[in-house]
């Protein structure tokens, strides 16, 4: 036990003192903290911008063709604001001189021509059809004795509705659950490779013989994996704490939908499931990565040795991502129970649908069992790998020899 604590303390210290870890943590914490200020900052930029698409910034000119024009139309056009020209050629000269960006030649109340000097990407005459159509509709309503202000309530009457969801409402939970699943995804991939590399480096640097003669393989593997797990949790906690503080500061500026999504997702059921499956599944994967790291003698072989497990994990991620739209399918259910995919799928499934307790018991039991078995296997492979330097051996052969090995 003392050996385990010694290995754990040393590995944890080595990990959290790495410059790369410190810098990444600070940068990610600052980014998430900064993101929480976005809703507060949006109003500062809206309304005062200088986009070319803003009709108020466009200088318009117009010409009314010969004929009778309904009363009030010209006032409506001038409100753009727009300047009147008497003839089409005057309008063209104004465009050529750069006085205007857009010109309108109105032939009738429902027909016009747009003129540009140079038509830019943002140049737009969208404002005129709406204006003419609105003017026309209002005129017609007035002529029929209807107050135009009553039109919206006639066209879009307010319909009262209430919704009762007896199970899980996944319309508001999917986004947050997906985001939290992505955290686990990156956690496993980044720390998994780091753990495999750490073990492989001990063989590469020949430190393994010294370690294995100083303490047990069990202390070494458990100490390293627990240290990796705690380091990841510490790093994640700092980042999420920064996001939490930012959220608390800017809570009032967040749209209501965000609050609804958070409160809809972070139910007790989901939080318990997320923490359990993430922690146990994460440990299981770290043991797998540590075992695979023990099978190679050089650090550069780590990525090829860990490729099968990476594929398996990415497969789990794809089921989780695509399964969101078919959260009550058999595939999604089976994937949530199998430990290797369940680490990602089960928390997501818990957020999206009501999961029967039997499924939870089965999934948690299997995951716990697999974690213990893989930890045992990792210890055996690590011990076997102590002095097996040289050519890469097939995984099946490694497992067979490691289990047979009596050293």
């Amino acid at each position, binding site marked *: 036990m*003392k*050996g385990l604590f*010694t*290995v754990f303390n*040393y590995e944890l*210290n*080595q990990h959290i003192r790495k410059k790369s870890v410190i810098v990444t943590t600070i940068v990610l914490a600052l980014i998430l903290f900064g993101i929480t200020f976005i809703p507060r900052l949006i109003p500062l930029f809206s309304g005062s911008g200088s986009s070319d698409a803003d009709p108020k910034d466009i200088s318009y000119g117009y010409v009314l063709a010969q004929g009778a024009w309904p009363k009030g139309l010209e006032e409506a056009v001038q409100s753009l604001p727009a300047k009147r020209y008497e003839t089409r050629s005057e309008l063209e000269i104004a465009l050529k001189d750069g006085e205007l960006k857009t010109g309108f030649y109105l032939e009738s109340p429902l027909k016009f021509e747009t003129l540009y000097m140079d038509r830019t990407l943002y140049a737009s005459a969208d404002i005129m059809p709406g204006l003419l159509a609105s003017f026309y509709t209002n005129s017609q309503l007035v002529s029929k004795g209807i107050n135009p202000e009553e039109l919206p309530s006639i066209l879009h009457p307010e319909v009262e509705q209430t919704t009762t969801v007896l199970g899980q409402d996944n319309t508001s939970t999917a986004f947050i659950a997906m985001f939290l699943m992505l955290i686990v995804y990156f956690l496993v991939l980044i720390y998994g490779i780091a753990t495999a590399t750490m073990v492989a480096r*001990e063989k590469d*640097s*020949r*430190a*393994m*013989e*010294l*370690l*294995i*003669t*100083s*303490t*047990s393989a069990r202390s070494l593997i458990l100490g390293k994996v627990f240290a990796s797990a705690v380091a990841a949790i510490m790093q994640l906690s700092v980042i999420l704490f920064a996001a939490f503080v930012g959220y608390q500061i800017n809570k009032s500026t967040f749209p209501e939908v965000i609050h609804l999504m958070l409160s809809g997702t972070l139910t007790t059921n989901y939080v318990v499931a997320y923490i359990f499956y993430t922690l146990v599944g994460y440990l299981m994967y770290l043991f797998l990565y540590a075992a695979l790291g023990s099978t190679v003698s050089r650090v550069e072989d780590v990525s090829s040795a860990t490729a099968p497990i990476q594929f398996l994990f990415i497969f789990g991620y794809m089921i989780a991502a695509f399964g969101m739209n078919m959260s009550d399918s058999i595939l999604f259910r089976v994937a949530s129970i199998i430990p290797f995919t369940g680490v990602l799928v089960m928390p997501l499934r818990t957020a999206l649908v009501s999961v029967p307790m039997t499924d939870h018991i089965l999934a948690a039991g299997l995951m716990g069992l697999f974690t213990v078995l893989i930890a045992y296997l990792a210890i055996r492979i690590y011990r076997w790998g*102590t*002095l097996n330097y040289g050519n890469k051996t097939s995984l099946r052969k490694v497992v067979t020899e490691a289990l047979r090995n*009596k*050293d």
Partner: protein
Amino acid sequence: MKLELKNIHKSFGDKKVLHGIDMTVQSGRALGFLGRNGAGKSTTIRCIMEVFRQDEGDILLDGQPFHAKNQHVGYLPEERGMYSKAKVLDQLVYFGQLRGGTKKDSKQSATKWLEYFDLGEWAGKPLEQLSKGNQQKVQIIQSFVNDPDLLILDEPFSGLDPVNAQIFKDAIGGFVKEGKLVIFSSHQMAYVEELCDDIALIHEGNILLDGDLDAILKARSKNRWVLEGKDNKALRELIEQNFPSFEIESHEDSFIVDAKGELDQAALFNAIANQGLLLEKFERWMPTLNDLFIETVGGEKQ
């Protein structure tokens, strides 16, 4: 303490590496473990350290089964390696703690040995920044941390310059004086001869020689004597005439006589005195460890 290896056998697949090793090491007496490359030295040491488990045989410490992890052992493996990116003192303390020391004691001990090997200024630097020779010294220090009761060193002199080798020899001498049990393998016969009281010579997985170094050398001297006279030519002629069964081997200023049995010293001295010759040197010829090694291992080969 007495460490005994009894009938140790070890195979790797079909290849039998150790064929019944018997060997005894006593505390307070350094044992030099000799053998050619591939003779089985490192395999034997790894069996002692439980890196491998022997197929057959027992390893006993004072009559009880020996388990390296339960004892206070300082070990320097043949395959050198520590954490290249970790700071020197940090990892020395770590290895000290792994072998059962407290953090405080390990730090104190590591600092003492770093100073002893003139590496104090490197304590806070990553190992990879040290020269190869200094890295080798750090490797040695890790085996010394926390004052181990048993020291098992596989090729400790490799990579050390003569000055550092002398510093290391002094340290080993200190451990032996303190009554520690010391085993080290080496190809450098001069160091073994200087440091060791006992030797074990392994060849192709068999122990060919084992025991007190002086006694082994004396036994190997047979009845060979070194003679040097004022007139070596006349002296040689006299021996050839009076003792025709003797084998004579000339050297620069002397010659070695093999009496092929018990030498009748009185008869030899009388013959020399009667001839009126002057004898300046007369002593038993003793082989060097190097002679012994080549003679034993080379002879086996033939």
